[in-house]
């Protein structure tokens, strides 16, 4: 698979890209690198000259507060460009790191600049990505701000299932998610013990399970009911018949 194919697939989930656009994406000079889990891609304060496409694996954005505690802000999957904002906002205001072994593609800002200058459809698709990114952040705030622990967990996993499925990375109700309980606690604003209790309760009730780097959702309806998950903020088009 060409390194930009997953990006094209991701953008085509919700944007109408022509074959010429796909060719333009394919022609982007991209430097591919395999990295271990917990590798910093960019750190707060950095001034990157490249954007990173996740080709394979998982990453997260995070910030460390003055008390030393880390808040994970978002999770990123194959096809995402989690530091796209560095194209215009030159100084990073948060950290970006892998949470699993990953294959990353690095594209020079100058090449992306040229691409969006000559391909307005791609510019619109990338703009749309940043808007959806913001919608996901809004939902994240609601999640950690007002939902109880079990709903936070269920919501996060329901969202990941939708996003993974959109790029063909979910196998029915099962998908890869190599995350530790400590990282989940940093994402959900819970203690590691609380995350442990929530997961054990879900497992006992046969709702969902997270073991050996895989999430298996056994009872989708219960997950949706528990979390109040409504995927509309992800703006993933459905093939529903017109009303």
């Amino acid at each position, binding site marked *: 698979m060409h390194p930009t194919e997953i990006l094209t697939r991701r953008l085509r989930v919700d944007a109408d890209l022509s074959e010429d656009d796909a060719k333009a994406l394919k022609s982007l000079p991209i430097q591919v690198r395999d990295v271990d889990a917990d590798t910093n891609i960019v750190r707060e304060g950095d001034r990157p000259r490249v954007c990173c496409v996740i080709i394979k694996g998982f990453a997260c954005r995070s910030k460390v507060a003055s008390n030393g505690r880390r808040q994970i802000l978002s999770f990123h999957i194959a096809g995402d460009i989690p530091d796209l904002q560095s194209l215009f906002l030159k100084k990073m205001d948060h950290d970006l790191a892998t949470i699993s072994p990953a294959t990353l593609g690095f594209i020079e800002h100058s090449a992306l600049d040229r691409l969006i200058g000559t391909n307005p459809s791609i510019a619109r698709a990338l703009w749309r990505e940043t808007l959806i990114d913001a919608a996901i952040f809004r939902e994240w705030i609601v999640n950690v701000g007002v939902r109880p622990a079990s709903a936070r967990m269920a919501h996060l996993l329901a969202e990941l299932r939708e996003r993974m499925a959109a790029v063909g990375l979910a196998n029915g109700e099962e998908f890869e998610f190599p995350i530790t309980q400590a990282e989940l606690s940093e994402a959900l604003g819970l203690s590691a013990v609380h995350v*442990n209790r929530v997961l054990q309760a879900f497992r006992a009730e046969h709702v969902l399970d997270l073991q050996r780097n895989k999430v298996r959702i056994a009872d989708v309806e219960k997950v949706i009911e528990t979390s109040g998950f409504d995927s509309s903020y992800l703006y993933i088009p459905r093939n529903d018949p017109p009303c």
Partner: protein
Amino acid sequence: MRFYFTQPGGPPDEDGVEFADVNSALEEAARTALLMVREQPKLTDALTLNVASTEGLVGSVTVKVAVTR
């Protein structure tokens, strides 16, 4: 060391959580119990978390909110 956290009558803990020592595990259990009690349908119900190592129970924490008039 790995510690396992359970509530009386609740599901077993098959995964556990790593802590440096018993005190750290109990302290985290106490912090968690405080958070969990806030999410109970009835705030004044007592909530207990038992903490065990691979060798057996090492302690427990109980949080109870009392409302007086």
